[in-house]
């Protein structure tokens, strides 16, 4: 609307003349926690020494963590820029920036490129646990269970701590070893030094334990209010369904689908939602697209369920077999499997 050039020129002139303002005035309160403080101290450091490639890399990695903790995706673009700056300053053997890049790629579900960054990070910093962690996440999602296990064991032996214990818990869970997973999470909880790490561990422990319906409703309502990501919307929807509020539930599924259709994102989640609450053909399209990228237990389950939605149960079973091959006993995965087996009987 305001596209007149003279106005723009005037505004630019004003902007240029205006005295610079501090971003955080003294009299204001700022929410803070450990990661935010970490970011701020790195920013302070970089104001003094903007050529510090390592600090830019750490700032980038911190933003990736902040995005995870705050659900605020603007941290991804900040991470991206900080890492780009780090790599501009030091393009070669910049292990810390490779780690950040890998973490960012994992967060954006670009697992193949996360694996590549992870491998570069490992060769630059062979004894670094975070580099292994990037690799663990990527390989797990790409379906390379053996590779992921090796990297994870190495990570555990380099740094037994929150990062490696929580990953071990996931590994155990995918292999159907729920007790070991709980044990690993308890150890992670003990090693946790910040509130968000503790929250993560407690949340996962509750997920393992299973929630009563009231608990589930409350937890997911809270999460959806914070970050209406498709995944949480579906879980919230499921809780609403169980609580006898199908209309409310439907609204959550619709919102998730609408989001995924319009804005793209995770085809795996899209496939599962579409299979249950949308168009079966669309579900299969999503699932096959993701399967082409990675053949993991997650995508196997999605393809199986999408095939089942298309009444192709015999084919679905083959994929369902793969989904549980490691021993994964996720209630949803089992529900899919039972339905497939049921229609073959």
């Amino acid at each position: 609307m305001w596209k007149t050039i003279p106005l723009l020129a005037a505004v630019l002139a004003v902007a240029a003349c205006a005295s610079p303002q501090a971003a955080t005035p003294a009299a204001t309160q700022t929410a803070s926690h450990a990661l935010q403080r970490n970011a701020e101290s790195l920013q302070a450091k970089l104001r003094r020494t903007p050529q510090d490639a390592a600090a830019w890399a750490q700032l980038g990695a911190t933003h990736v963590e902040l995005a995870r903790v705050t659900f605020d995706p603007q941290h991804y673009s900040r991470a991206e820029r900080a890492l780009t700056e780090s790599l501009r300053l030091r393009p070669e053997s910049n292990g810390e920036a490779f780690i950040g890049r890998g973490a960012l790629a994992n967060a954006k579900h670009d697992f193949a490129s996360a694996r590549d960054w992870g491998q570069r990070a490992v060769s630059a910093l062979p004894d670094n646990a975070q580099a292994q962690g990037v690799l663990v996440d990527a390989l797990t999602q790409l379906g390379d269970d053996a590779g992921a296990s090796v990297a994870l064991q190495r990570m555990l032996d380099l740094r037994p701590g929150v990062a490696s214990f929580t990953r071990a818990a996931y590994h155990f869970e995918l292999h159907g070893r729920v007790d070991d997973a709980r044990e690993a999470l308890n150890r992670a909880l003990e090693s946790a030094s910040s509130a968000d790490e503790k929250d993560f561990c407690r949340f996962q422990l509750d997920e393992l334990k299973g929630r009563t319906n009231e608990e589930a409703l409350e937890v997911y309502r809270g999460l959806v209010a914070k970050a209406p990501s498709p995944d949480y919307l579906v879980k919230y929807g499921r809780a609403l369904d169980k609580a006898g509020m199908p209309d409310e539930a439907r609204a959550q599924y619709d919102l998730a689908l609408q989001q995924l259709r319009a804005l793209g994102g995770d085809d795996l989640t899209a496939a599962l939602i579409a299979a249950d609450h949308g168009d079966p053909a669309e579900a299969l399209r999503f699932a096959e697209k993701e399967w082409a990228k990675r053949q993991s237990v997650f995508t196997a389950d999605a393809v199986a369920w999408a095939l089942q939605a298309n009444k192709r149960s015999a084919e679905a079973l083959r994929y369902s077999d793969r989904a549980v091959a490691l021993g994964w006993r996720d209630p949803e995965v089992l529900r899919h499997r039972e339905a497939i087996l049921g229609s073959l009987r």
Partner: protein
Amino acid sequence: MPTSNKQRLRRGAIAAAVVAVAAAIPAAQASSHREAPLIAADPAVDNTDVYAFTSPDRPDTVTLVANWFGLQEPNGGPNFYPWATDARYDLNIDADGDAMPEKVFRFTFTTDDRRGGKSPTFLYNNGPVTSINDDNLLFRQNYNLELIEGSKTTPLVRNGRAAPSNTGPASFPNFATIRDQATSKIPGGGQVYVGPSEDSFFLDLRVFDLLYGGNLKEVNQDTLMGYNVNTIAIQVPKTMLALKGDPKRNPVVGVWSDTEKRSLKLEPGRATPQGDFVQVSRLGNPLVNEVVSSAPIKDAFNGLQPVNDAKVQALLDRVNDPELARLIQQIYGIPAPKTPRADLVEIFLTGITTKAGGPIKADLNSQLNNADVDPKKFAPSEMLRLNMSTPVTKDPNRLGVLGGDLQGFPNGRRLADDVVDIEIQAVVGAAQTGKLVPALAKGDRVNKNDVRFGDKFPYVGLPSNRAVNSN
């Protein structure tokens, strides 16, 4: 104003670029793949400093101080800083110079949590705590101290009480009492304190940012002022540490601390996924990561046993040709001394001695100077080396040996030694020439700790109980 104009305009351009980048990122971020923490720190097991000195008030004993869990903010809130219970906190003594510890003082912890299940994260204490056994103290930690000598393990303290985190004046009206109560006797004439203290280290952390690309003008602020650490302080007779129990013949001991944490085994088929203890942190000489080590070898160094130090060429290279010297040359034009730096090898890896062919013509603190050491078994390694026979200096010089005070760093380390300035001087060659480099004489311009040290055990400052930002 012109620079700020430019900045503003550039910011606008960047903003436009960001819009483009932000738009490219998909919305659905949190989702099916579990995003676990990646850069989680583990401060509870991270060594920050080690000190070793002849006790000034009891010169027949040596005091060792090791700190973990740096940068504790004593803000009186629900924050407290427990010791890890799945870890071993070790103080290692190598008196025969083979880079392997003959004696290990090992501390392990258990938690006694009396808060009940209702609100597991809240309320460290339930009202003011006036003694270590006060019922109001709800979260307690106890420790066992063992002395490990080869295959022999001797328990020294069973169920010792660690002093709690200082959560503020309302909760702990008199922390000194609590600290006294948390100090235990060791059989054979020693004592030990486990609990928080004000961080004894004083420096302007920014000095390292600046050396790596800035200037020294901005420094002079104790970055660690007001922060606490978890401290283990142990005072033992010199006879307990010396080789063959004879500090006269064998006055030199090497000291370092490390933390081992229990790993976890993934391989299927085991009853419990418990793993071995792995070394996750190690510390001897101060600032070794900043001055000597570097990012690529930092991780390796933390897991490395001293006995293997000499096999890691990257580490030896860093000592022989420290980046810091070259940086100082670039920034200040102070020529970097010729490499390889045999003087630094003496300071960090062998101890100062004439018996290893080094350039510093003094016999100060190498195990090679112990009468009963077999030089053939001597292995260079990074550790803090203390000559226990050096008499206590009445008026200590903050620059230690470089300042003509032989009792100070690098001959062991006292709480008040200004190790930042000493190491910067050493890196530009002061130990070799015997002369301080005037251009750097002021160093980081933080010359003493903000809290006075005590004159009796455990010497360290009482933990601060005021929020750092309220100072």
